[in-house]
């Protein structure tokens, strides 16, 4: 049986993931949405580290290294897109981004 402490980590991971998801769906400012996205990634990271500890294999920890890198790359690309968009439109509110319509 898995020790109860793993459940604690998992619960926090699930909570972080859900809060991040709600933030992505509800918030209207692109930068905040962006932070919520990172929160979702961090949730998976926490779950991986916890599983790695309790499974006794290193794979999860190695996975986390790469997730951090990918998250950094995502930040770079995402911010670049936001900057490019702001230069054109002078706004980063999602509900004002509606030039693409039928």
């Amino acid at each position, binding site marked *: 049986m898995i020790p109860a402490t793993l459940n604690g980590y998992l619960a926090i991971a699930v909570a972080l993931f859900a809060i991040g998801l709600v*933030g992505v769906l*509800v918030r209207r400012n692109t930068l905040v949405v962006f932070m919520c996205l990172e929160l979702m990634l961090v949730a998976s990271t926490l779950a991986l580290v916890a599983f790695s500890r309790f499974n006794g294999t290193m794979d999860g920890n190695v996975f986390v290294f790469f997730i951090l890198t990918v998250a950094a790359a995502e*930040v770079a690309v995402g911010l670049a897109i936001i900057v490019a968009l702001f230069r054109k439109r002078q706004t980063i509110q999602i509900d004002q981004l509606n030039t693409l319509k039928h």
Partner: protein
Amino acid sequence: MNSPHPYAFLALFAAVAVAFPLALLGVARLWARYFSPPKPSATKNDVYECGVAPTGDSWIQFKAHYYLYATLFLIFDVEVLFLLPIAVAFTELPVGALFAVLIFILLLAEGLVWAWHRGHLEWK
């Protein structure tokens, strides 16, 4: 305890975690509607409601260069993440691993050279 499954609580937790922020946001919205309807005015929209009178718009354009520096820094910041384990295990690694790391650094260096040549490192 006759819990159906050791992981069943996760579903409950997810539900609670979704409901919690939604509830807070909803309460905030309701509160705003009944107790503090928005009355925007020039004074209220000021950067500081009291104190120093701001000059100009707060939405000024920062130089995009600041952001480029940050991105470049980020890349080499994260590089350490991979180099440190390599350094720790260095004596036990085969030659191939060294080559792999060199290729990795070469890729990053090319990025730096590119930014340099494009003039992104000039402080204007």
